[in-house]
């Protein structure tokens, strides 16, 4: 039903996953494929760039937690940008921010990460 389009782009040392669309349980194949692809290319710094209008629910957040768990075992740094104020708050509440920095803009993220 619901699909994501994910573009992978290397910006200096940072691998940006630009994720279009909602983040729900239906995102699983898309998110996993993009993450695996980035990892196979040797990514060590990964920036997840969400669509500010996306609907993100607990199923989608669970997928992100799984991604963060994998990244930790591989010593990858993961950061997040493109969240609306509401989802920034939600990510704080859940504690995602303990394992992934949240940046307001792509520019700020790229600058601070490299």
């Amino acid at each position, binding site marked *: 039903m619901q699909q994501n389009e994910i573009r992978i782009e290397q910006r200096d040392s940072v691998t940006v996953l630009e994720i279009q669309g909602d983040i729900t349980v239906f995102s699983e194949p898309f998110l996993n494929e993009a993450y695996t692809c980035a990892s196979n290319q040797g990514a060590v710094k990964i920036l997840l760039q969400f669509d500010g209008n996306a609907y993100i*629910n607990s199923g989608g957040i669970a997928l992100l937690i799984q991604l963060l*768990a994998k990244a930790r075992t591989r010593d990858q740094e993961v950061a997040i940008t493109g969240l609306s104020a509401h989802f920034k708050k939600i990510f704080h509440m*859940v*504690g995602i921010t303990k394992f992934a920095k949240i940046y307001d803009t792509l520019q700020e993220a790229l600058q601070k990460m490299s």
Partner: protein
Amino acid sequence: MNVTSDQGEMIRFLDEQTLEVNLPNKLGYERIAMDCTASFARIVGFVPERISDLKTAVAEACLNAMEHGNRGRSDARVIVSMNFDGQTFSVSVMDEGEGIVELPEDPDIEKKIERLEPPRGLGIFLIRRLMDHVEFNKLSDQGNMLRMVLKMSRSH
């Protein structure tokens, strides 16, 4: 107000402040309940920030009703009833299940990342954190009901 008809099923009377959405038990359709609730809350004057809270809470309650209450049964229904009395915006989400057996503990992100706890289990936590008041396992004519309340006073 509920009354029982001759046939034993319940007939619900909807009053002038109450609006109801009756959804098929289909993952993804929680968005419709969410958009409908947001539209109602906007009309009665809630601010965008509180509407976002409400949207997430309604979506999570509907997902739980679909997955846990109705156990994914495609012929089951989810009924979302919403009411605003000038002060209190309340949303009830009804499913055909038995209710929650045990309220989950708050999620522990460290444990989740260490894989000592499943990644799921965030819905009820979010609902409780975002709403002003939540009641679980209320009995309704449809089966199980979760009722949540948003108060106008709290800076809309």
